[in-house]
Protein backbone atom coordinates (compact mmCIF):
# COMPACT_ATOMS: atom_id res chain seq x y z
CA UNK A 1 0.00 0.00 0.00
CA UNK A 2 1.08 3.58 -0.59
CA UNK A 3 0.37 5.92 2.27
CA UNK A 4 0.48 9.71 2.42
CA UNK A 5 1.68 10.29 5.95
CA UNK A 6 3.39 12.70 8.33
CA UNK A 7 6.96 11.82 9.24
CA UNK A 8 7.11 9.91 12.52
CA UNK A 9 3.77 8.17 12.02
CA UNK A 10 5.13 5.25 9.97
CA UNK A 11 3.93 1.88 11.22
CA UNK A 12 5.85 0.02 13.90
CA UNK A 13 8.00 -2.60 12.24
CA UNK A 14 8.86 -0.50 9.18
CA UNK A 15 12.42 0.69 8.71
CA UNK A 16 11.20 4.27 8.53
CA UNK A 17 9.78 4.13 12.07
CA UNK A 18 12.69 5.09 14.26
CA UNK A 19 10.79 5.34 17.57
CA UNK A 20 11.27 1.74 18.59
CA UNK A 21 8.70 1.83 21.36
CA UNK A 22 5.67 2.73 19.26
CA UNK A 23 3.04 0.08 18.60
CA UNK A 24 0.73 1.88 16.17
CA UNK A 25 0.62 -0.10 12.95
CA UNK A 26 2.16 -3.10 14.71
CA UNK A 27 -0.86 -5.36 14.37
CA UNK A 28 -0.80 -4.78 10.63
CA UNK A 29 2.94 -5.34 10.13
CA UNK A 30 2.86 -8.37 12.43
CA UNK A 31 0.19 -9.93 10.24
CA UNK A 32 1.23 -8.80 6.77
CA UNK A 33 4.85 -7.69 7.14
CA UNK A 34 6.24 -4.22 6.56
CA UNK A 35 7.64 -4.63 3.08
CA UNK A 36 4.34 -3.82 1.38
CA UNK A 37 4.07 -0.36 2.95
CA UNK A 38 5.41 2.63 1.06
CA UNK A 39 5.22 6.08 2.60
CA UNK A 40 5.11 9.45 0.92
CA UNK A 41 5.76 12.14 3.51
CA UNK A 42 3.65 15.25 3.95
CA UNK A 43 5.64 18.49 4.06
CA UNK A 44 2.62 20.63 4.79
CA UNK A 45 -1.15 20.43 4.36
CA UNK A 46 -1.18 22.46 1.16
CA UNK A 47 1.47 20.45 -0.64
CA UNK A 48 -0.32 17.25 0.43
CA UNK A 49 -3.66 18.15 -1.13
CA UNK A 50 -1.94 19.64 -4.17
CA UNK A 51 0.07 16.47 -4.76
CA UNK A 52 -3.22 14.58 -4.85
CA UNK A 53 -4.73 17.19 -7.14
CA UNK A 54 -1.87 16.58 -9.59
CA UNK A 55 -2.95 12.97 -9.85
CA UNK A 56 -0.86 11.12 -7.26
CA UNK A 57 -2.78 8.13 -5.92
CA UNK A 58 -2.61 6.74 -2.44
CA UNK A 59 -4.34 3.86 -0.70
CA UNK A 60 -4.45 5.63 2.65
CA UNK A 61 -4.05 9.34 3.31
CA UNK A 62 -3.62 11.17 6.59
CA UNK A 63 -4.62 14.80 6.08
CA UNK A 64 -5.92 17.16 8.75
CA UNK A 65 -9.48 18.35 9.20
CA UNK A 66 -8.97 21.67 7.44
CA UNK A 67 -8.58 19.80 4.14
CA UNK A 68 -11.00 16.87 4.60
CA UNK A 69 -13.59 18.61 2.46
CA UNK A 70 -11.09 19.24 -0.36
CA UNK A 71 -10.32 15.54 -0.60
CA UNK A 72 -14.00 14.61 -0.57
CA UNK A 73 -15.13 17.30 -3.02
CA UNK A 74 -12.23 16.48 -5.32
CA UNK A 75 -13.36 12.88 -5.51
CA UNK A 76 -9.98 11.64 -4.31
CA UNK A 77 -11.32 9.49 -1.46
CA UNK A 78 -14.15 7.11 -0.67
CA UNK A 79 -16.04 6.43 2.57
CA UNK A 80 -14.78 3.85 5.05
CA UNK A 81 -16.82 0.81 6.00
CA UNK A 82 -16.79 1.40 9.74
CA UNK A 83 -18.10 -2.11 10.38
CA UNK A 84 -14.60 -3.30 9.38
CA UNK A 85 -13.04 -1.14 12.10
CA UNK A 86 -13.78 -2.74 15.50
CA UNK A 87 -12.20 0.16 17.43
CA UNK A 88 -14.22 2.80 15.60
CA UNK A 89 -16.88 2.72 18.31
CA UNK A 90 -14.31 3.98 20.84
CA UNK A 91 -13.57 7.20 19.00
CA UNK A 92 -14.60 10.61 20.24
CA UNK A 93 -18.02 11.46 18.72
CA UNK A 94 -17.19 15.12 18.04
CA UNK A 95 -14.06 14.21 16.06
CA UNK A 96 -15.90 11.37 14.30
CA UNK A 97 -18.57 13.86 13.22
CA UNK A 98 -15.89 16.12 11.74
CA UNK A 99 -14.97 13.29 9.39
CA UNK A 100 -18.49 12.84 8.02
CA UNK A 101 -19.58 14.22 4.68
CA UNK A 102 -22.82 13.50 2.87
CA UNK A 103 -23.79 11.21 5.72
CA UNK A 104 -20.77 8.97 5.26
CA UNK A 105 -17.56 8.47 7.20
CA UNK A 106 -14.77 9.76 5.00
CA UNK A 107 -12.20 10.41 7.72
CA UNK A 108 -11.30 8.26 10.72
CA UNK A 109 -9.92 10.69 13.31
CA UNK A 110 -6.74 9.60 15.04
CA UNK A 111 -4.57 12.43 16.38
CA UNK A 112 -5.11 15.95 17.64
CA UNK A 113 -2.97 18.63 19.18
CA UNK A 114 -1.84 22.22 19.23
CA UNK A 115 0.31 24.53 17.16
CA UNK A 116 2.07 27.29 19.00
CA UNK A 117 5.33 29.12 19.61
CA UNK A 118 8.11 26.98 21.00
CA UNK A 119 11.02 28.93 22.44
CA UNK A 120 14.26 28.47 24.36
CA UNK A 121 13.68 29.73 27.89
CA UNK A 122 17.45 30.18 28.34
CA UNK A 123 17.59 32.64 25.45
CA UNK A 124 14.25 34.43 25.31
CA UNK A 125 13.21 37.01 27.88
CA UNK A 126 10.00 35.70 29.53
CA UNK A 127 8.55 39.21 29.31
CA UNK A 128 8.73 38.96 25.52
CA UNK A 129 7.12 35.53 25.35
CA UNK A 130 3.47 36.29 25.87
CA UNK A 131 1.83 35.87 22.49
CA UNK A 132 2.21 35.26 18.77
CA UNK A 133 3.78 38.71 18.42
CA UNK A 134 7.06 37.14 19.58
CA UNK A 135 7.60 36.17 15.94
CA UNK A 136 7.61 39.88 15.09
CA UNK A 137 10.09 40.94 17.79
CA UNK A 138 13.18 42.37 15.99
CA UNK A 139 15.29 41.61 19.06
CA UNK A 140 15.34 37.99 17.92
CA UNK A 141 16.20 38.52 14.26
CA UNK A 142 17.83 35.42 12.73
CA UNK A 143 16.80 33.35 15.75
CA UNK A 144 13.26 32.78 14.52
CA UNK A 145 11.91 30.10 12.20
CA UNK A 146 8.30 30.00 11.12
CA UNK A 147 6.92 27.00 9.26
CA UNK A 148 6.84 27.00 5.49
CA UNK A 149 3.14 26.22 5.79
CA UNK A 150 1.20 28.91 4.04
CA UNK A 151 -2.24 28.88 5.59
CA UNK A 152 -0.93 28.38 9.12
CA UNK A 153 1.11 31.55 8.90
CA UNK A 154 -1.96 33.53 7.87
CA UNK A 155 -3.83 32.08 10.84
CA UNK A 156 -0.99 33.23 13.09
CA UNK A 157 -1.00 36.70 11.52
CA UNK A 158 -4.78 36.85 11.91
CA UNK A 159 -4.57 35.98 15.60
CA UNK A 160 -1.84 38.55 16.13
CA UNK A 161 -3.87 41.21 14.33
CA UNK A 162 -7.01 40.27 16.25
CA UNK A 163 -9.14 39.10 13.33
CA UNK A 164 -12.00 36.95 14.64
CA UNK A 165 -12.28 34.53 11.68
CA UNK A 166 -8.74 33.38 11.07
CA UNK A 167 -9.77 30.93 8.33
CA UNK A 168 -12.18 33.23 6.54
CA UNK A 169 -10.39 36.53 6.11
CA UNK A 170 -11.93 39.38 4.17
CA UNK A 171 -9.87 40.79 1.31
CA UNK A 172 -8.83 43.74 3.43
CA UNK A 173 -7.81 41.47 6.31
CA UNK A 174 -5.90 39.25 3.92
CA UNK A 175 -3.97 42.29 2.64
CA UNK A 176 -3.16 43.34 6.20
CA UNK A 177 -2.05 39.83 7.14
CA UNK A 178 0.09 39.66 3.99
CA UNK A 179 1.77 42.95 4.84
CA UNK A 180 2.33 41.81 8.39
CA UNK A 181 3.97 38.56 7.25
CA UNK A 182 6.14 40.47 4.77
CA UNK A 183 7.34 42.60 7.68
CA UNK A 184 8.03 39.49 9.74
CA UNK A 185 9.84 37.52 7.04
CA UNK A 186 13.34 39.08 7.36
CA UNK A 187 13.43 38.07 11.03
CA UNK A 188 13.44 34.37 10.10
CA UNK A 189 16.74 32.55 9.78
CA UNK A 190 14.89 30.13 7.53
CA UNK A 191 11.37 28.87 7.04
CA UNK A 192 11.50 25.30 8.25
CA UNK A 193 10.22 22.60 5.93
CA UNK A 194 10.93 19.41 7.84
CA UNK A 195 10.19 19.06 11.55
CA UNK A 196 12.92 16.52 12.17
CA UNK A 197 15.67 17.53 9.76
CA UNK A 198 15.31 21.34 9.85
CA UNK A 199 13.51 22.45 12.96
CA UNK A 200 14.57 20.00 15.66
CA UNK A 201 18.35 20.20 15.12
CA UNK A 202 18.29 24.00 14.88
CA UNK A 203 16.27 24.35 18.10
CA UNK A 204 18.40 21.79 19.87
CA UNK A 205 21.78 23.28 19.03
CA UNK A 206 20.58 26.81 19.66
CA UNK A 207 20.74 28.16 16.12
CA UNK A 208 17.05 28.95 16.47
CA UNK A 209 15.40 30.14 19.68
CA UNK A 210 11.83 30.72 18.56
CA UNK A 211 9.79 28.64 16.15
CA UNK A 212 6.33 27.52 15.19
CA UNK A 213 5.88 23.96 16.35
CA UNK A 214 3.62 21.27 17.67
CA UNK A 215 3.85 19.98 21.20
CA UNK A 216 5.98 16.97 20.31
CA UNK A 217 9.06 19.22 20.09
CA UNK A 218 8.44 20.45 23.62
CA UNK A 219 8.24 16.85 24.84
CA UNK A 220 11.38 16.04 22.86
CA UNK A 221 13.17 18.80 24.74
CA UNK A 222 11.92 17.50 28.09
CA UNK A 223 13.10 13.98 27.35
CA UNK A 224 16.42 15.01 25.80
CA UNK A 225 19.48 14.27 27.90
CA UNK A 226 20.32 16.81 29.15
CA UNK A 227 16.88 18.43 28.84
CA UNK A 228 16.61 21.36 26.46
CA UNK A 229 14.96 24.37 28.06
CA UNK A 230 11.93 24.71 25.79
CA UNK A 231 8.58 26.22 26.56
CA UNK A 232 5.48 25.59 24.47
CA UNK A 233 3.66 28.86 24.72
CA UNK A 234 0.04 29.43 25.64
CA UNK A 235 -0.27 32.71 23.70
CA UNK A 236 -2.60 35.36 25.03
CA UNK A 237 -4.51 35.03 21.75
CA UNK A 238 -4.77 31.23 22.14
CA UNK A 239 -2.99 28.31 20.51
CA UNK A 240 -3.88 26.82 17.18
CA UNK A 241 -5.65 23.47 17.38
CA UNK A 242 -5.82 20.65 14.86
CA UNK A 243 -6.95 17.11 14.37
CA UNK A 244 -6.18 14.72 11.57
CA UNK A 245 -7.62 11.47 10.31
CA UNK A 246 -7.20 8.63 7.88
CA UNK A 247 -8.88 8.79 4.50
CA UNK A 248 -9.30 5.97 2.00
CA UNK A 249 -8.03 6.44 -1.56
CA UNK A 250 -10.82 6.32 -4.10
CA UNK A 251 -9.19 3.86 -6.43
CA UNK A 252 -7.42 1.73 -3.88
CA UNK A 253 -6.90 -1.89 -4.79
CA UNK A 254 -6.22 -2.61 -1.12
CA UNK A 255 -9.64 -1.87 0.34
CA UNK A 256 -9.55 -4.48 3.12
CA UNK A 257 -5.85 -4.04 3.78
CA UNK A 258 -6.47 -0.33 4.25
CA UNK A 259 -9.11 -1.07 6.88
CA UNK A 260 -6.78 -3.50 8.66
CA UNK A 261 -4.06 -0.88 8.55
CA UNK A 262 -6.21 1.84 10.07
CA UNK A 263 -7.57 -0.50 12.73
CA UNK A 264 -3.98 -1.14 13.76
CA UNK A 265 -3.68 2.61 14.44
CA UNK A 266 -6.96 3.31 16.21
CA UNK A 267 -7.00 0.40 18.67
CA UNK A 268 -6.47 1.32 22.28
CA UNK A 269 -2.80 0.25 22.56
CA UNK A 270 -1.90 2.09 19.36
CA UNK A 271 -3.72 5.24 20.43
CA UNK A 272 -1.99 5.20 23.80
CA UNK A 273 1.34 4.71 22.04
CA UNK A 274 0.67 7.82 19.95
CA UNK A 275 0.06 9.87 23.06
CA UNK A 276 2.95 8.50 25.07
CA UNK A 277 5.37 9.01 22.17
CA UNK A 278 4.43 12.44 20.87
CA UNK A 279 2.08 13.71 23.58
CA UNK A 280 -0.51 14.38 20.96
CA UNK A 281 -4.08 13.74 21.90
CA UNK A 282 -5.81 10.64 20.62
CA UNK A 283 -9.28 10.34 19.15
CA UNK A 284 -9.67 7.15 21.20
CA UNK A 285 -11.99 8.16 24.03
CA UNK A 286 -10.98 5.12 26.07
CA UNK A 287 -7.46 6.49 26.63
CA UNK A 288 -7.57 7.67 30.23
CA UNK A 289 -5.42 10.42 31.66
CA UNK A 290 -4.09 7.95 34.22
CA UNK A 291 -2.58 5.82 31.44
CA UNK A 292 -0.44 8.64 30.14
CA UNK A 293 3.16 8.31 31.24
CA UNK A 294 3.99 11.95 31.97
CA UNK A 295 1.09 13.21 34.04
CA UNK A 296 2.48 16.74 34.19
CA UNK A 297 2.56 17.05 30.42
CA UNK A 298 -0.81 15.36 30.08
CA UNK A 299 -2.38 17.83 32.47
CA UNK A 300 -0.80 20.93 31.00
CA UNK A 301 -1.91 19.97 27.50
CA UNK A 302 -5.33 18.57 28.53
CA UNK A 303 -4.45 15.53 26.43
CA UNK A 304 -7.19 13.36 27.83
CA UNK A 305 -9.90 15.68 26.63
CA UNK A 306 -10.28 16.48 22.91
CA UNK A 307 -13.21 18.74 23.79
CA UNK A 308 -10.63 21.37 24.70
CA UNK A 309 -10.43 22.01 20.93
CA UNK A 310 -13.78 23.75 21.12
CA UNK A 311 -12.69 26.07 23.97
CA UNK A 312 -12.07 29.18 21.89
CA UNK A 313 -10.60 31.05 24.83
CA UNK A 314 -7.58 28.71 24.63
CA UNK A 315 -7.59 27.13 21.19
CA UNK A 316 -8.53 28.11 17.65
CA UNK A 317 -9.30 25.02 15.62
CA UNK A 318 -7.79 25.14 12.14
CA UNK A 319 -10.66 24.69 9.73
CA UNK A 320 -11.48 24.66 6.03
CA UNK A 321 -10.72 27.92 4.24
CA UNK A 322 -13.20 29.05 1.59
CA UNK A 323 -10.63 31.43 0.07
CA UNK A 324 -7.75 28.97 -0.01
CA UNK A 325 -6.47 30.06 -3.43
CA UNK A 326 -6.27 33.72 -2.40
CA UNK A 327 -4.48 32.83 0.84
CA UNK A 328 -1.97 30.56 -0.89
CA UNK A 329 -1.29 33.14 -3.58
CA UNK A 330 -0.77 35.78 -0.89
CA UNK A 331 1.74 33.46 0.79
CA UNK A 332 3.69 33.21 -2.46
CA UNK A 333 3.83 37.00 -2.48
CA UNK A 334 5.15 36.95 1.08
CA UNK A 335 7.93 34.51 0.20
CA UNK A 336 8.78 36.47 -2.95
CA UNK A 337 8.86 39.85 -1.18
Amino acid at each position, binding site marked *: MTILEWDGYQAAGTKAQTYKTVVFGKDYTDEFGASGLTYSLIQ*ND*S*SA*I*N*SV*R*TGKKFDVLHPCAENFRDYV*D*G*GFVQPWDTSLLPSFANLNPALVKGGQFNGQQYAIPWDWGYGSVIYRTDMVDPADATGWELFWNPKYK*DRISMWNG*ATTNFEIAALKLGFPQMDNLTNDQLDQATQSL*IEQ*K*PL*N*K*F*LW*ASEYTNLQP*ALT*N*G*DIWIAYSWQDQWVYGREHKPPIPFNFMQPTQGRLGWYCGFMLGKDTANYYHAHKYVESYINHAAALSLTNTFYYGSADATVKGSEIADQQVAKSLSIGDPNVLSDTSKVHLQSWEPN*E*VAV*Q*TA*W*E*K*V*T*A*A
Partner: protein
Amino acid sequence: MSAAGSRERRSASFLRPGSGLLILPPTVWVLAVLVAPIVLIGLYSVNLKTNLLGVPTAFSTANWKDFLPPGSNPFWDRFKISMTITLVVSVVTVVAAYPLAYFLAFVAGKRRYALLMLLLAPFFTSYLLRVIAWQVILNNHGVINSLLWQLGLRPHGDGIPWLIYSKFSVGLVLFYSWVPFVAVPMFVVLDTMDRSLIEAAHDLGASRLTAFLRVTLPLSIPGVIAGFVFVLIPTTGEFITPLLVGGPSSFMFGNSIQSFFTDTPNWNYGAVLALWLVAIVLVMLLLFGRYLSTDLEDAAT
Protein backbone atom coordinates in the same frame (compact mmCIF):
# COMPACT_ATOMS: atom_id res chain seq x y z
CA MET B 1 36.14 25.09 -46.69
CA SER B 2 34.48 28.44 -46.13
CA ALA B 3 31.59 28.89 -43.73
CA ALA B 4 29.35 29.84 -46.66
CA GLY B 5 30.30 26.69 -48.54
CA SER B 6 29.53 24.60 -45.52
CA ARG B 7 26.08 26.13 -45.21
CA GLU B 8 25.35 25.53 -48.92
CA ARG B 9 26.28 21.88 -48.57
CA ARG B 10 24.03 21.49 -45.56
CA SER B 11 21.14 23.16 -47.41
CA ALA B 12 21.63 20.93 -50.44
CA SER B 13 21.65 17.74 -48.39
CA PHE B 14 18.53 18.90 -46.61
CA LEU B 15 16.75 19.13 -49.97
CA ARG B 16 17.65 15.61 -51.02
CA PRO B 17 14.58 13.38 -51.48
CA GLY B 18 13.74 11.50 -48.32
CA SER B 19 15.80 13.69 -46.01
CA GLY B 20 12.58 15.20 -44.65
CA LEU B 21 11.97 11.92 -42.91
CA LEU B 22 15.20 12.35 -41.02
CA ILE B 23 14.06 15.54 -39.37
CA LEU B 24 10.66 14.10 -38.51
CA PRO B 25 11.70 12.38 -35.23
CA PRO B 26 13.48 15.44 -33.80
CA THR B 27 10.61 17.66 -34.95
CA VAL B 28 8.07 15.44 -33.23
CA TRP B 29 10.29 15.32 -30.17
CA VAL B 30 10.59 19.11 -29.97
CA LEU B 31 6.86 19.56 -30.53
CA ALA B 32 5.98 16.97 -27.89
CA VAL B 33 8.40 17.86 -25.11
CA LEU B 34 8.96 21.57 -25.68
CA VAL B 35 6.24 23.26 -27.69
CA ALA B 36 3.24 21.33 -26.36
CA PRO B 37 4.08 21.87 -22.66
CA ILE B 38 4.65 25.58 -23.30
CA VAL B 39 1.28 25.81 -25.06
CA LEU B 40 -0.30 23.97 -22.13
CA ILE B 41 1.30 26.35 -19.66
CA GLY B 42 0.07 29.19 -21.85
CA LEU B 43 -3.50 27.90 -21.55
CA TYR B 44 -3.16 27.84 -17.77
CA SER B 45 -1.77 31.37 -17.74
CA VAL B 46 -4.90 32.77 -19.41
CA ASN B 47 -7.24 30.62 -17.34
CA LEU B 48 -8.34 28.38 -20.21
CA LYS B 49 -7.25 25.44 -18.07
CA THR B 50 -7.24 25.01 -14.32
CA ASN B 51 -6.07 22.42 -11.84
CA LEU B 52 -9.00 23.16 -9.53
CA LEU B 53 -12.02 20.93 -9.75
CA GLY B 54 -15.31 22.72 -10.13
CA VAL B 55 -13.71 26.04 -10.98
CA PRO B 56 -14.93 27.32 -14.37
CA THR B 57 -12.41 28.17 -17.06
CA ALA B 58 -12.76 31.30 -19.12
CA PHE B 59 -10.22 33.43 -20.94
CA SER B 60 -8.75 35.93 -18.52
CA THR B 61 -5.60 38.02 -18.50
CA ALA B 62 -6.05 38.96 -14.84
CA ASN B 63 -2.92 37.13 -13.70
CA TRP B 64 -0.83 38.71 -16.44
CA LYS B 65 -2.20 42.14 -15.52
CA ASP B 66 -1.34 41.50 -11.89
CA PHE B 67 2.20 40.39 -12.71
CA LEU B 68 3.36 42.41 -15.68
CA PRO B 69 3.48 46.06 -14.59
CA PRO B 70 7.07 46.34 -13.30
CA GLY B 71 7.21 46.86 -9.56
CA SER B 72 3.56 46.00 -9.12
CA ASN B 73 4.15 42.95 -7.00
CA PRO B 74 6.88 41.17 -5.01
CA PHE B 75 7.63 38.72 -7.81
CA TRP B 76 9.44 41.49 -9.67
CA ASP B 77 11.73 42.02 -6.70
CA ARG B 78 12.35 38.28 -6.55
CA PHE B 79 13.06 38.27 -10.28
CA LYS B 80 15.61 41.08 -9.95
CA ILE B 81 17.35 39.40 -7.00
CA SER B 82 17.29 36.13 -8.87
CA MET B 83 18.83 37.58 -12.04
CA THR B 84 21.49 39.38 -10.00
CA ILE B 85 22.50 36.11 -8.34
CA THR B 86 22.46 34.40 -11.74
CA LEU B 87 24.64 37.00 -13.46
CA VAL B 88 27.15 37.22 -10.61
CA VAL B 89 27.42 33.42 -10.43
CA SER B 90 27.82 33.16 -14.22
CA VAL B 91 30.58 35.76 -14.43
CA VAL B 92 32.49 34.48 -11.40
CA THR B 93 32.18 30.89 -12.58
CA VAL B 94 33.54 31.72 -16.03
CA VAL B 95 36.43 33.71 -14.57
CA ALA B 96 37.30 30.82 -12.25
CA ALA B 97 36.87 28.11 -14.86
CA TYR B 98 39.04 29.76 -17.51
CA PRO B 99 42.38 29.09 -15.79
CA LEU B 100 41.27 25.49 -15.25
CA ALA B 101 40.48 25.07 -18.93
CA TYR B 102 43.73 26.81 -19.89
CA PHE B 103 45.73 24.54 -17.61
CA LEU B 104 44.11 21.43 -19.06
CA ALA B 105 44.59 22.55 -22.67
CA PHE B 106 48.08 24.02 -22.55
CA VAL B 107 49.88 22.68 -19.48
CA ALA B 108 48.48 19.26 -18.56
CA GLY B 109 49.71 17.61 -21.76
CA LYS B 110 48.86 13.93 -22.15
CA ARG B 111 47.21 13.83 -18.72
CA ARG B 112 44.60 16.39 -19.70
CA TYR B 113 41.76 13.96 -20.35
CA ALA B 114 42.43 12.11 -17.12
CA LEU B 115 42.43 15.42 -15.26
CA LEU B 116 39.27 16.46 -17.08
CA MET B 117 37.57 13.31 -15.82
CA LEU B 118 38.80 14.14 -12.34
CA LEU B 119 37.30 17.61 -12.69
CA LEU B 120 33.99 16.09 -13.73
CA ALA B 121 34.05 13.42 -11.02
CA PRO B 122 31.59 15.27 -8.73
CA PHE B 123 28.96 14.86 -11.45
CA PHE B 124 28.92 11.16 -10.70
CA THR B 125 27.30 12.04 -7.39
CA SER B 126 23.71 13.25 -7.10
CA TYR B 127 23.37 17.03 -7.31
CA LEU B 128 21.05 16.93 -4.31
CA LEU B 129 23.62 15.10 -2.21
CA ARG B 130 26.32 17.56 -3.16
CA VAL B 131 24.15 20.49 -2.07
CA ILE B 132 23.28 18.73 1.18
CA ALA B 133 27.00 18.17 1.76
CA TRP B 134 27.41 21.94 1.58
CA GLN B 135 24.81 22.25 4.33
CA VAL B 136 27.13 20.19 6.52
CA ILE B 137 30.03 22.46 5.68
CA LEU B 138 28.24 25.79 5.99
CA ASN B 139 25.66 25.44 8.72
CA ASN B 140 26.02 27.14 12.07
CA HIS B 141 27.51 24.07 13.71
CA GLY B 142 29.17 22.93 10.50
CA VAL B 143 32.76 22.36 9.43
CA ILE B 144 33.78 25.99 8.88
CA ASN B 145 32.28 27.48 12.02
CA SER B 146 33.52 24.56 14.15
CA LEU B 147 37.02 25.11 12.81
CA LEU B 148 36.86 28.82 13.59
CA TRP B 149 35.73 27.99 17.12
CA GLN B 150 38.50 25.42 17.57
CA LEU B 151 41.08 27.93 16.40
CA GLY B 152 39.65 30.55 18.74
CA LEU B 153 38.91 32.90 15.85
CA ARG B 154 35.26 33.27 16.89
CA PRO B 155 33.53 32.79 20.26
CA HIS B 156 32.19 29.26 20.61
CA GLY B 157 28.61 28.99 19.39
CA ASP B 158 28.83 32.25 17.43
CA GLY B 159 28.66 31.19 13.77
CA ILE B 160 29.24 33.50 10.82
CA PRO B 161 25.68 34.72 10.19
CA TRP B 162 25.88 34.94 6.39
CA LEU B 163 27.57 31.59 5.85
CA ILE B 164 24.30 29.74 5.26
CA TYR B 165 20.69 30.66 4.45
CA SER B 166 21.97 33.70 2.58
CA LYS B 167 22.62 34.94 -0.96
CA PHE B 168 26.27 34.13 -0.35
CA SER B 169 25.59 30.46 0.33
CA VAL B 170 23.31 30.18 -2.70
CA GLY B 171 25.94 31.82 -4.92
CA LEU B 172 28.76 29.70 -3.51
CA VAL B 173 26.99 26.38 -4.04
CA LEU B 174 25.89 27.35 -7.55
CA PHE B 175 29.46 28.42 -8.33
CA TYR B 176 30.81 25.10 -7.05
CA SER B 177 28.23 23.17 -9.03
CA TRP B 178 28.89 24.84 -12.35
CA VAL B 179 32.65 25.41 -12.50
CA PRO B 180 33.48 21.98 -14.01
CA PHE B 181 30.60 22.23 -16.45
CA VAL B 182 31.68 25.68 -17.63
CA ALA B 183 35.31 24.62 -17.98
CA VAL B 184 34.44 21.97 -20.58
CA PRO B 185 33.43 24.21 -23.54
CA MET B 186 36.35 26.51 -22.84
CA PHE B 187 38.69 23.53 -22.73
CA VAL B 188 37.35 22.26 -26.06
CA VAL B 189 37.94 25.61 -27.74
CA LEU B 190 41.40 26.05 -26.25
CA ASP B 191 42.41 22.45 -26.95
CA THR B 192 41.46 22.65 -30.62
CA MET B 193 42.99 26.06 -31.15
CA ASP B 194 45.55 26.37 -33.94
CA ARG B 195 48.81 26.58 -31.94
CA SER B 196 50.72 27.91 -34.94
CA LEU B 197 48.96 31.25 -34.44
CA ILE B 198 50.43 31.55 -30.97
CA GLU B 199 53.83 30.49 -32.25
CA ALA B 200 53.56 33.14 -34.98
CA ALA B 201 52.80 35.77 -32.33
CA HIS B 202 55.91 34.75 -30.42
CA ASP B 203 57.97 34.76 -33.63
CA LEU B 204 56.79 38.30 -34.23
CA GLY B 205 58.11 39.34 -30.83
CA ALA B 206 54.97 39.14 -28.69
CA SER B 207 55.51 38.32 -25.02
CA ARG B 208 53.56 35.42 -23.50
CA LEU B 209 51.10 37.88 -21.97
CA THR B 210 50.66 39.78 -25.23
CA ALA B 211 50.19 36.54 -27.17
CA PHE B 212 47.58 35.46 -24.68
CA LEU B 213 45.74 38.78 -24.74
CA ARG B 214 45.95 39.28 -28.50
CA VAL B 215 45.63 35.71 -29.80
CA THR B 216 44.57 33.04 -27.28
CA LEU B 217 41.91 35.02 -25.45
CA PRO B 218 40.12 36.43 -28.53
CA LEU B 219 40.10 33.00 -30.18
CA SER B 220 38.69 31.40 -27.04
CA ILE B 221 35.83 33.89 -26.69
CA PRO B 222 33.27 31.51 -28.27
CA GLY B 223 34.08 28.96 -25.57
CA VAL B 224 33.91 31.61 -22.89
CA ILE B 225 30.50 32.75 -24.07
CA ALA B 226 29.30 29.16 -24.44
CA GLY B 227 30.42 28.47 -20.86
CA PHE B 228 28.72 31.65 -19.69
CA VAL B 229 25.46 30.60 -21.35
CA PHE B 230 25.79 27.06 -19.99
CA VAL B 231 25.65 28.40 -16.46
CA LEU B 232 23.42 31.44 -17.07
CA ILE B 233 20.41 29.65 -18.53
CA PRO B 234 19.99 26.76 -16.08
CA THR B 235 20.74 29.01 -13.12
CA THR B 236 17.98 31.38 -14.19
CA GLY B 237 15.40 28.74 -13.24
CA GLU B 238 17.28 27.31 -10.25
CA PHE B 239 15.26 26.37 -7.18
CA ILE B 240 16.87 23.39 -5.42
CA THR B 241 19.98 25.18 -4.18
CA PRO B 242 18.10 28.16 -2.69
CA LEU B 243 15.63 25.73 -1.16
CA LEU B 244 18.38 23.87 0.69
CA VAL B 245 20.98 26.52 1.52
CA GLY B 246 19.05 29.75 0.93
CA GLY B 247 17.05 31.67 3.48
CA PRO B 248 13.83 33.63 3.09
CA SER B 249 15.74 36.53 1.52
CA SER B 250 17.64 34.43 -1.00
CA PHE B 251 14.86 32.42 -2.61
CA MET B 252 15.00 32.71 -6.37
CA PHE B 253 12.32 33.22 -9.00
CA GLY B 254 12.33 29.48 -9.67
CA ASN B 255 11.27 28.88 -6.07
CA SER B 256 8.13 30.94 -6.61
CA ILE B 257 7.29 28.91 -9.72
CA GLN B 258 7.96 25.60 -8.00
CA SER B 259 5.90 26.63 -5.02
CA PHE B 260 2.94 27.72 -7.14
CA PHE B 261 2.84 24.28 -8.73
CA THR B 262 3.46 22.17 -5.62
CA ASP B 263 2.22 24.07 -2.57
CA THR B 264 -0.41 26.37 -4.02
CA PRO B 265 -3.60 25.46 -5.82
CA ASN B 266 -3.02 28.32 -8.24
CA TRP B 267 -1.27 26.89 -11.26
CA ASN B 268 -2.65 29.76 -13.33
CA TYR B 269 -0.47 32.36 -11.63
CA GLY B 270 2.48 29.96 -11.57
CA ALA B 271 2.05 29.54 -15.33
CA VAL B 272 2.44 33.30 -15.82
CA LEU B 273 5.72 33.27 -13.90
CA ALA B 274 6.91 30.17 -15.78
CA LEU B 275 6.15 31.69 -19.18
CA TRP B 276 7.90 34.90 -18.19
CA LEU B 277 11.01 32.88 -17.38
CA VAL B 278 10.73 30.96 -20.66
CA ALA B 279 10.60 34.31 -22.48
CA ILE B 280 13.69 35.53 -20.65
CA VAL B 281 15.56 32.33 -21.51
CA LEU B 282 14.53 32.65 -25.17
CA VAL B 283 15.88 36.19 -25.26
CA MET B 284 19.15 34.92 -23.78
CA LEU B 285 19.31 32.18 -26.38
CA LEU B 286 18.74 34.69 -29.15
CA LEU B 287 21.51 36.88 -27.77
CA PHE B 288 24.04 34.14 -27.17
CA GLY B 289 22.80 31.18 -29.19
CA ARG B 290 25.13 31.71 -32.14
CA TYR B 291 28.09 31.17 -29.88
CA LEU B 292 26.81 27.72 -28.98
CA SER B 293 27.58 26.53 -32.51
CA THR B 294 29.90 23.56 -32.59
CA ASP B 295 31.39 24.97 -35.78
CA LEU B 296 34.01 27.25 -34.29
CA GLU B 297 34.57 28.96 -37.61
CA ASP B 298 30.88 29.86 -37.74
CA ALA B 299 30.91 31.00 -34.16
CA ALA B 300 33.98 33.14 -34.59
CA THR B 301 32.55 35.02 -37.58
